Structures are given as structure tokens and as C-alpha cells.
């Protein structure tokens, strides 16, 4: 509220001075004279640029979901004015969240040693995470840097959210293809309220009919129910939870594991194959009978 009223005040000299001194969130600046960056890689955008980035990246990522950099840009463009601040405040309200903001840990293949994770006992968070990364064939290094969020602390919150996305996959057991990703985005929307996660749900348009039915009947209700009632997943200090039992962590957070999507799809695929083989056999025998 304060931000909007500052911009709308009259252009007297006193106000002008305070406007010029303000940080990029409320200062009006020209694209030819951007304020200095707040962190490495920071690009201060004007409101029009942010709007154009939001619209463009929304369309681009819908048309080509492999453009993870556009999904990231959509998240950053739509996170302000309110949502990333709410998430940051949720972190500040919890002791673990405050510690994360103070330590600012980063998740890369250097900081999280995969061979060590693989040696952990089964059903620990670390082992489940490593197993999930191996199963899906991804690495922790693929996350883009946050560039378009002006507040430095909120930029870190966004970066942390992005880097913990894989841990959320491990926590819920959802796979990396589009059906699992959309279900996880639904969960993240209910849990973090970031607009990009909600907007990503439009990707249901790209699902096949059976996948859509499964999504609306099982996974979306699971995602919304669990996301809202669970504790803030952003406050989990994953680096310290690597040796905890994953079921204990799920119980503590209040997250139920949804039906395993890979197993369901495999089962349905095999059932379809068996039915097809039976039908072909029947046709062949039927043919021989007539001959």
C-alpha cells in the first residue's frame, strides 16, 4: 500500500528527492538509467518490462515446456509485489527459516555430495533424494540464477525455493515428466502461494485425456489438500535432514505420499499390452478357425 501511494503523490521537489533515493521496487527509473544491481546478475526491471516478461515467458513456457529458464523468469516476474515477501516472512516466522536465511546454503553438486548420499540407509531423506535423482536422470546443477527480483533477501528465497524443488520431488515421490511436475506444482502452489506455480497448472492443456482424468480425480485434490495443510516446505533445512527417515519427515510436515505415478502408469501400460496381446491371439485363433 505504501508503495503505490508514494508513486501516486504529487511531483513536488521534496517528494521527487525521496523517490530518487528509493530502491528499485518503488523508484521510477528509465531503462537507459537503471539503478545499480543489488546482487550479482541482478537486472532491475521497470513495471512494463516485468509485465512483458511475465506475459512472454508464460506464453513461451506453455508452448515449449522444456524452456525451464522461461518458467524461472515467469516465477520471478510474478513474485512481486506481494507473494515473495509473504514467503520470506513465512521463513522469518520460523526458527529454522531464520537460520536458513542467515546461513544462505546453496544446493549444487559441489555442496551436496552424491556418492555420500547414496551410502545413506534406505528410506532416509538423502538416500531417497539421491535415488530420485538417479531414477529421473537429473542433477542438482540445473537451476537458473535469480535475476529479476529486486530485494536481495527475497532473491535468495526464490533461489532456495528453486533449488529445493528436487527435494520436494523426493518428498512426494512424484516423477519428472509433465504429469508429475504439474501435480507437484499444484502442491507447491498450495504451500508457497507463488503465482508461477498456480499459472503452471494451465499446462494441463498439454496432458493426454487419461492423464488429465487422473490429475483431476486424484492428484489435484491430493496436491491442494496436502499443500494447504502441510507446514511450509521452504522452511525445511534439507542439508540437516539428509539422515532423517523420510516417512518421519512426511509425518512432521503433514504430507501424505500420493499414489506412485510411475508404478500406476507402468501397471496401466502392461495391462493395455496384455489386453492387446490377448485380443491379437483371439483374432488369430478366430482366423484359423474360419480357414
Amino acid at each position, binding site marked *: 500500500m505504501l508503495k503505490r501511494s508514494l508513486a501516486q503523490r504529487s511531483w513536488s521537489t521534496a517528494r521527487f528527492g525521496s523517490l530518487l533515493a528509493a530502491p528499485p521496487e518503488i523508484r521510477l527509473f528509465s531503462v537507459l538509467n537503471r539503478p*545499480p544491481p543489488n546482487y550479482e546478475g541482478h537486472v532491475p526491471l521497470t513495471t512494463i518490462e516485468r509485465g512483458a516478461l511475465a506475459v512472454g*515467458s508464460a506464453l513461451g513456457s506453455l508452448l515449449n515446456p522444456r524452456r525451464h*529458464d522461461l518458467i524461472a523468469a515467469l516465477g520471478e516476474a510474478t513474485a512481486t509485489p506481494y507473494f515473495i515477501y509473504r514467503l520470506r516472512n513465512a521463513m522469518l516466522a520460523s526458527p529454522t527459516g531464520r537460520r536458513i536465511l542467515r546461513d544462505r546454503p546453496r544446493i549444487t553438486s559441489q555442496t551436496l555430495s552424491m556418492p555420500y548420499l547414496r551410502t545413506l540407509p534406505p528410506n532416509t531423506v538423502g538416500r531417497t533424494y539421491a535415488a530420485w535423482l538417479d531414477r529421473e536422470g537429473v542433477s542438482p546443477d540445473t537451476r537458473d540464477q535469480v535475476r529479476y527480483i529486486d530485494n536481495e533477501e527475497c532473491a535468495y528465497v526464490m533461489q532456495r525455493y528453486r533449488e529445493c524443488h528436487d527435494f520436494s520431488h523426493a518428498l512426494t515421490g512424484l516423477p519428472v515428466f509433465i504429469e508429475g511436475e504439474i501435480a507437484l506444482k499444484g502442491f507447491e502452489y498450495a504451500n508457497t502461494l507463488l503465482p508461477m506455480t498456480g499459472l503452471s497448472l494451465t499446462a494441463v492443456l498439454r496432458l493426454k485425456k487419461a492423464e488429465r482424468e487422473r490429475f483431476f480425480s486424484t492428484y489435484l485434490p491430493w496436491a491442494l489438500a496436502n499443500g494447504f495443510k502441510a507446514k511450509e516446505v521452504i522452511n525445511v533445512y534439507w542439508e540437516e535432514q539428509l539422515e532423517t527417515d523420510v516417512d518421519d519427515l512426511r509425518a512432521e510436515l503433514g504430507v501424505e505420499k500420493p499414489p506412485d505415478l510411475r508404478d500406476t502408469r507402468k501397471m496401466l501400460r502392461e495391462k493395455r499390452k496384455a489386453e492387446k496381446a490377448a485380443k491379437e491371439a483371439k483374432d488369430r485363433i478366430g482366423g484359423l478357425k474360419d480357414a
Partner: protein
Amino acid sequence: MNQSFRSLIRRPANAHALSRPQYRYYAITRPRFQHFQNQPSSTSSSKDERTTHFGFETVAESLKESRVGAVFSSVASSYDTMNDLMSLGIHRLWKDHFVRSLNPGSNSTTSATAKAQPGWKILDIAGGTGDIAFRLLDHASTIHSDHSTHVTVADINPEMLAEGRKRALQTPYHNSDQLSFVETNAEDLTMIPSNSIDLYTVAFGIRNFTHKDAALREASRVLKPGGVFACLEFSKVQNPVFNEVYKRWSFSAIPLIGQLVAGDRDSYQYLVESIEKFPNQTEFRDMIKEAGFMVPGKGWEDLTDGIAAIHKGVKPLP
């Protein structure tokens, strides 16, 4: 960088940082590790190494070539789409006009000099994807029925050359001896013999060279006496109102389109900064004159009010 009127009444950037009001957070988090801190970028390796500009950044001269190389390796695959989006398709008109005004090709049946030496020898520098080269060859074959003109496409970047070779497959020249590709630095054309080229073209390339004067001197060396040096490059817009619109499009929309289409904001930020850093029309004409060329008329032709300009020079006869 040009200081706009508004920047004169604004406080300078460092005063802004010092007088930023302190916001009251629940807790001031001081990160233990230096992530998300404003790191000063240290680019030069030693104090006595010469520096040059890379966009608005200052880099050591030895590093500029590899930085530019990285930019063009990154943009090579979406080069044409991005050119169309950034210039709204107008770059095609510029290139067409450039080639037509050069009028390459000569018909051996109608020209006595052409009978002795059929076809032009053309060197297209920084011509990686072949935009200009194909236009030159098409002009020679269709307008002058000249099928002996030879174009050598030279580029320092292998990815751009690979794009050019790929696109050449769609033309009638890929199997002929009218087109060849060579990977070289324009400042050092040792594989091209002196006084052997009729026409030297460089389109939207010279802006990226570390040493433009060295490239101009090499151009002067390889051209025959009477040969033509032609350069199509971004330049300064003449009309001040249009210039303001153009600058805002450059610094705002182009990096944004780069992010959306090519996934690379930084390369396009470099591109618009390098346009800003390039000398204006008169300065560049004087550089061409200094390299030993005779410059016809005022020396350049503005396109779209100066967004691009065609500079020409002729190597004088001895």
C-alpha cells in the same frame, strides 16, 4: 554513455546507494557466505595490459575476442529469428539495398574487362551465416548472368560458419566453386594474397572487432587497386526524437526478446551496448580514410535514419 536530461537532475548512482533508506526487517540477515553480494567484477589480469570495451564493460584486450566468441556461439542457432524480431524484419531491406548498391557481378559477353577476368572475387568478412554472401551471388547470377563470381565467407566463429554451411545447402552454390568458407580473424588475413580481392564486404561484424584499424589495414592490403571496401554497420540515429524511441527499444525490448526467444539476455545486452560504443558516421569514415581508402562523397549512406549506415571506400590506384 550519452547523459540524458533526466540524469542531470538525478543524484549520481553512488549517492543513491549511500542514502538508500534503511528498511526495518524482522531481522537483518547478514549472510555468512558471500552469495548475493555485490561483487566488483575484476576483469583485467595485469596493470600494464591494454584494455578495451566489451559493451559497457572494460575488459583486457586479450579477453575481448573470446568474450565475443562466446556471444556469437550462443546466438548462432537463433540468429535469423532474433534478427527478424529485433529489427522487425527491416534488416532484410538493409541487406538487400547494401548488395544492390554494390552491384556485384559482371557479364563477360557485354564487358570487355570481364572477358579477361570473368567474375568478381569477393571477400565477405564476419559473414558467418551467409546472409550477404548468398545475396551477392544471387545478384551476380540473376542480374548479370555471372556464374563465375566467387565469394569467400570468412568468420572467426566456427558455430556461425557451421550455420552458414548448413544454409548454403539450400542454395545452388553449395556444390559449386563459387562459394568457400574460411575460419579466420579479420585482423590477420594471411591466407588471402595481397591485391587479390575486387570487393570486401563486412556486414554487422566490424563493431565486434578488437582492433578495427588493423582490420581496415588488412582490407586495404587484400583489395586490388580500385577495389571497393563496403561496410554495413549500426550507427547513430540522426533525428533526436526517433533516437529516444530507438534507444528505449534497444535497451529494453531487445534484451527482453533475447531472454524470451533465445534464452540469453546477456548476449543481446552486449549487442546493444556495442552498438552504443561504436563510433558515429563521421568518425568511422575518418578511420576508413586513415586506412588509406578514398571515400566517395560524404562517405556513408544512412539507412532508416541512421540506425544502420553503409560506409564505402575505394583503394586508390598506385
